């Protein structure tokens, strides 16, 4: 498949804050004011998209947007104000465990009759819901492991070595065809989705944007390195059993071999990653910097919080027979299984 080197197009605005940020990126308008930022809902479409636009400059940028805007002081000031709304809401709304061990212990319990998105898709998900799920998650999986790479220079010793080893595995162990983002693109092809980076940004719901913004927020701030490590641990600990359910959903709906392989690979890989992240990364970080324990716990629990919001959104739409996307997803190619 030829690599599409073009940057993604800027998405449609979802309110005054995201509209102003997008216009500023185009070089054609002022940044949003304090009042507009203060009035936007913290987890809502407008604020989350505005934050996503700011963060995306650190990944691949946008077509027609000057790359140097990544470090534009005025834009960074706006980003900080938007981040403050998001982070304040996360701190206020997240039920935080009393300790890292307590937070992890809860993640390690795997209820037989769980009711999350992977349980739903395994038991009764239809192919159109599987496709929607993949389109939504593509905002992360097409840059899988990238937000976490930012933490590497902020760690050292066991934590750095463990984190780098897991990231190396996420990036395919040195083989381009095994990079997890590439495996996800293969899954998308099976599902007849467009694998172009950023293609489904317009379609993704606010709750999905929040899950990706959380990683970027934690990854880009050294002050939140403990939270980033906690977030990564939460993802890796919950991924293996969740991936097993999603692999079953792929098989049952006939999604295709690459779709099954993506989740099968994560069952096995993340069973290893969980161990390394718990013992080496968290263990190593807290041995060096025990004062970060509360941040690690916050990172674990904030991840659960935003994932719960996403699950509630997806399941409420699907149970009502409605799409979870803001715009329909066309079949890009005939499905062959």
């Amino acid at each position, binding site marked *: 498949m030829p690599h599409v080197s073009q940057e993604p197009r800027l998405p449609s605005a979802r309110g005054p804050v995201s509209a102003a940020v997008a216009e500023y990126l185009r070089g054609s308008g002022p940044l949003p004011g304090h009042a507009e930022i203060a009035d936007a809902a913290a987890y809502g479409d407008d604020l989350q998209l505005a934050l996503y636009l700011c963060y995306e400059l650190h990944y691949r940028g946008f077509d027609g947007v000057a790359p140097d805007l990544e470090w534009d002081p005025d834009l960074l000031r706006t980003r900080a104000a938007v981040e403050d709304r998001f982070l304040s809401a996360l701190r206020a709304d997240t039920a935080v465990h009393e300790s890292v061990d307590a937070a992890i212990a809860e993640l*390690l*319990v*795997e*209820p*037989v*009759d*769980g*009711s*999350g998105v992977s349980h739903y898709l395994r038991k009764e998900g239809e192919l159109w819901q599987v496709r929607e799920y993949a389109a939504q998650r593509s905002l992360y999986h097409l840059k899988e492991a990238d937000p976490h790479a930012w933490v590497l220079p902020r760690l050292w010793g066991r934590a750095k070595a463990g984190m780098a*080893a897991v990231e*190396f*595995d996420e990036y395919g*162990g040195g083989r381009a065809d095994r990079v997890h983002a590439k495996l996800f693109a293969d899954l998308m092809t099976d599902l007849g989705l467009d694998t172009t980076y950023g293609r489904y940004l317009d379609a993704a719901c606010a709750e999905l944007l929040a899950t990706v913004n959380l990683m970027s927020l934690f990854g880009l701030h050294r002050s939140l390195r403990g939270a980033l490590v906690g977030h990564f641990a939460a993802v890796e600990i919950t991924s*293996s*059993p969740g991936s*097993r359910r999603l692999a079953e959903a792929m098989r049952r709906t006939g999604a295709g071999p690459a779709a099954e392989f993506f989740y*099968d690979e994560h*069952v*096995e*890989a993340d*069973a*290893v990653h*969980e*161990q*390394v992240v718990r*013992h080496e990364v968290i263990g190593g970080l807290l041995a060096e910097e025990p004062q970060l324990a509360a941040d690690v716990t916050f990172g674990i629990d904030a991840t659960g919080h935003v994932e719960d919001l996403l699950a509630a959104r997806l399941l409420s739409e699907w149970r009502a027979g409605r799409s979870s996307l803001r715009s329909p997803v066309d079949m890009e190619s005939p499905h062959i299984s």
Partner: protein
Amino acid sequence: MPNSPSDRPRRITVQRRGPLLVEGPVEVELEDGTTVSSDRFRVALCTCRRSRRYPWCDTSHRDRPHQRDA
């Protein structure tokens, strides 16, 4: 292949409630004589015998209580 004196022993990490962690790559011979291999930097070998991807760990050793929502 003989070990060179500079080789250090391969580390295996054991846990009472969890997989054996072995530095990869590994080749595992199963009871029926077939082999499976993994070139991951580390592999997790199932010790609870519940894995559906045996000999690799799939986290099936975790507690699985009924009647809880998650």
